[in-house]
């Protein structure tokens, strides 16, 4: 065998991002319906606002990629625009934003953080870090409640009948998106699954000891969405077959532990911490589990 390459698969950052962005459609479509049409007192701005964050996030991602990518004549437009995952990060963060967040705060903070992430090569979850910073800026500069959750029954959580951002759309949308990602052999869906299951088991146990509803603990604050899209970021997460499972379980455990202290930031802090140790998790889980088997 020699070193020349003649044929390659069609998988690229563009195709990976495209699948992830398309899998957001169930969330976006159901979110628009439940958060706008079903609510009384809507106007056009209120209808478009949740979608605007996703669109602004997309534009910022495109801008950052265009500025920082070295362009060759042979490169296609999709290769330049999707030279990194920043478009995906921008759209997902847009979906995570509550309509209470100032659009200007969101745009400027995101742009600065994306530029810094391009300049400094640190293996860290950019989405988690960006959300934490935007949340803290918004919390300490405004007096709004960032998330409003109104649910009338447990069923509402399953179908996402709660107000908030676009992603407040529940378990069914999560399952559809998970199916789309799994079928397209997205290798990091194991992280989402293990994080979700670990978190669900811990909250189920907790719900027996507290008066809290299991559905409220699991589905509030869109933890499942965050596990599905933010935790499974390709660059910052573990990549080995055993590592992704351990990575997901750790995220589930840390999220549960932080949930009572800071319910909104819990999953993001959990993801940020585990992303810092993703290489170590890969190394140790493969070493330890290999020894156990032998």
């Amino acid at each position, binding site marked *: 065998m020699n070193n020349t390459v003649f044929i390659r698969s069609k998988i690229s*950052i563009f195709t990976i991002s495209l699948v992830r962005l398309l899998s957001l459609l169930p969330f976006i479509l159901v979110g628009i319906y439940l958060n706008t049409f079903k609510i009384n007192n809507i106007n056009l701005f209120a209808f478009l606002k949740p979608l605007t964050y996703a669109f602004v996030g997309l534009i910022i991602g495109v801008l950052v990629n265009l500025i920082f990518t070295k362009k060759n004549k042979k490169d296609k437009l999709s290769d330049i625009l999707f030279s990194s995952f920043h478009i995906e990060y921008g759209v997902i963060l847009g979906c995570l934003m509550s309509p209470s967040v100032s659009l200007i705060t969101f745009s400027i903070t995101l742009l600065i953080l994306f530029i810094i992430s391009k300049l400094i090569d640190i293996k860290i979850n950019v989405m988690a870090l960006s959300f934490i910073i935007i949340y803290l800026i918004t919390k300490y500069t405004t007096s709004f409640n960032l998330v409003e959750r109104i649910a009338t029954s447990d069923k509402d959580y399953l179908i996402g009948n709660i107000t908030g951002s676009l992603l407040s759309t529940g378990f069914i949308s999560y399952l559809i998106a998970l199916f789309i990602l799994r079928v397209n052999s997205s290798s990091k869906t194991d992280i989402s699954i293990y994080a979700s299951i670990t978190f669900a088991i811990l909250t189920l146990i907790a719900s027996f000891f507290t008066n809290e509803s299991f559905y409220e603990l699991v589905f509030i604050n869109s933890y499942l969405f965050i596990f599905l899209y933010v935790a499974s970021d*390709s660059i910052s997460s573990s990549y080995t077959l055993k590592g992704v499972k351990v990575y997901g379980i750790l995220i589930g455990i840390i999220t549960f532990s932080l949930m009572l202290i800071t319910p909104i930031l819990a999953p993001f802090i959990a993801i940020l911490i585990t992303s810092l140790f993703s290489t170590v998790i890969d190394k140790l889980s493969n070493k330890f589990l290999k020894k156990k088997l032998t």
Partner: protein
Amino acid sequence: MNNNLEVVQANNIKIDNKINTFYNPDNIYIPLYKGMKLNKDKDLNVLKNELLLKGSDFNIYSPISGVIKKIDDDIYINNKPIKAIVIENDFKEEVKKKKYATKYIDDLEPSKVLELMNKYNILDIPLNPIAKTLVISGIEVDPFERNNTFIINNYSAKILETIDALINIFHFEKTYFCITNNNSEVVYNLTSNIGTYPNIKLKVLDNSYPLGLESVLVSKLLTKKELKWKYNYLTCEDLLNIYRILKKDNPISEKLITVGGNCIDESKVIAVKYGTKISDIIKNNIEITNDKYLVVENGLIAGKVLSELNNIVTRNTRSIFLNTKDTRKEKKCINCGLCMFKCPVGLNPKLIKDGKGDKSKCIHCGACTYVCPSLINFKKYLGDKDE
């Protein structure tokens, strides 16, 4: 999660079932391996199927009739120079003595079958008569090749007859004929004929690369018990050759090779004589559409670039491709883990690239390089299997 690797680009390659032949090159080149003695003098006539070279392990027979001209040292096998006997073709295909065909090959004694296989050096690994399992691979080693497809579409009756004969002669307990589900013609051809052979189990597997490699197919197909009992592994081409030697007690003088690539008009399977120069095949059988090609032997994914067109066709030649190379630049690793996930032997190419992993078990299938979204060429780090 599905770790099958489907080479989508190969699904569009269609070949004609017409039998293309190139039996009339001007010269044939017979490699003069170390320790081999020439059985004939120079300038003497040689007949087809006549014993030409005697060695300690195997003999070489002439694939054509003609005149021994000289010994040429500008001949290559796998890009390595070798001395070769040049036989000038007289285009008569004269044989020493015509032999009558054996009517029923399953009437042959096991010792006779093994003797013939050994005499004509049919298999790299001799058939193990005490193994309990027989695995037949109808799966292409490289997804762009079509040798097995061609053989199944044109010779399925002969192949099945041979398998049945081998089962009866050697009493194999289990026989699996493996094909993939992406070629409906092959599936149809076999399913319509295999009913009369209840001893042969047809296994239609998901189209995945590199299922055509013995180690990968066998590990997927056989249980630990079956592996322990030992198995025999044959390809469709092996079966066709076995059929021919059992029927006629003559050496095999020709080889089926797939000719393809993005620099020629259409892919095809051609029957050529052993010892034909690659340059002769290209000159006489291929319409080139793009001059900026490299000649690749034995697959587009794991094949080798031929630095010299004076390479000759040997038993190990399966295909030649005239293809442009991928010139896109490597990007930074995105940590997706696909290289590891799609590796059939469970290696970690990313770790090997960083100089930390163990590459000793690599089977050099090229799947990691094929699948990488960042266009990283892992072949550089995994080493050349010829070294």
